């Protein structure tokens, strides 16, 4: 007869009495740990995806803000009486150059503007039928528009843009009025 003694000093008369983990306990622990590891890895993958998307969105947002601010600052300087073409897709106006010749003051101007073209946004100069364009945003913009609102004789330009980053919309809107129109 085999007599076994465990660590507590209790005697058992068979191998079944020996302390330790049964195969079922080990399997349960492995399954639970596996489940938790699966959940954590899924969380990690999801968070990396979201971080990547947010990073992309942040970069796109900075780009749109740059285009937006550039337009707003430019429009502020001009007299709205000099707007020649304003539509949903473009605003065009004159930039004046004042110079003196033989004691007289002369003015010359070039026409510039901003235009939504396709899904891009361009800064334009009218020299040869608007061939001179400077892309500000090459793609990603759609359904963008300029809107002119007149209140009290001082027109205002509202600029609205919508861009899609990974299929999700990013919208911006602001208003400016040309400073030389008022007092």
């Amino acid at each position, binding site marked *: 007869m085999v007599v076994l003694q465990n660590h507590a000093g209790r005697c058992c008369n068979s191998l079944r009495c020996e302390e330790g983990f049964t195969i079922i306990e080990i399997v349960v*622990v492995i399954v*639970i*740990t596996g489940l*938790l*590891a699966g*959940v*954590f890895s899924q*969380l990690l993958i999801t*968070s990396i995806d*979201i*971080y990547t998307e*947010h990073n992309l*969105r*942040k970069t796109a*947002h900075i780009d749109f*803000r740059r285009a*937006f601010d550039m337009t*707003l600052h430019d429009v502020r300087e001009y007299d709205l009486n000099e707007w020649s073409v304003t539509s949903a897709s473009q605003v065009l106006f004159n930039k004046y150059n004042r110079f003196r010749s033989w004691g007289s003051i002369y003015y010359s101007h070039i026409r510039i503007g901003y235009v939504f073209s396709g899904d891009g946004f361009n800064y334009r100069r009218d020299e040869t039928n608007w061939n001179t364009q400077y892309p500000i945003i090459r793609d990603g913009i759609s359904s963008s528009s300029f809107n002119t609102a007149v*209140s*009290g*004789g*001082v027109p*205002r330009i*509202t600029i609205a843009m919508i861009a899609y980053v990974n299929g999700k919309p*990013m*919208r*911006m*809107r*602001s*208003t*400016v*009025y040309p*400073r030389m*129109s*008022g*007092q």
Partner: protein
Amino acid sequence: MVTLILTIAFPGIIEMYTTVLNKSHDAEVISIAELLAVEQMEIIKADKAAGSAAGLGYAYISQANYSGVNPSAPFNAWSRTVTVQTYNAGGTFEYKLVTVSVNHDMISAVVLKTILINHEGLG
């Protein structure tokens, strides 16, 4: 032991993810709030520039005239308020302090301020 540690850490890690994801969206919300504040401030300045002959001008700039200025769609998640305080009313150094405040649930208020003085009649 590993299972125990993971189980204890789980709620904390979930909370961390939630906070980080929410905060990472703040920059865009703040940026749009600032644009909406600029939008309203431009409207106020345009009204002032229009002059009294147009029924607007410096005298028109008052809190009562800018009471319902919440941004229109699709920016309904932001709210906007205008306050106008007049200092030294009727005196030589009268001026108005205009404050545009834009709020959103996710951020602290974005505030723009400007001081307006009456240029009309200075010729």
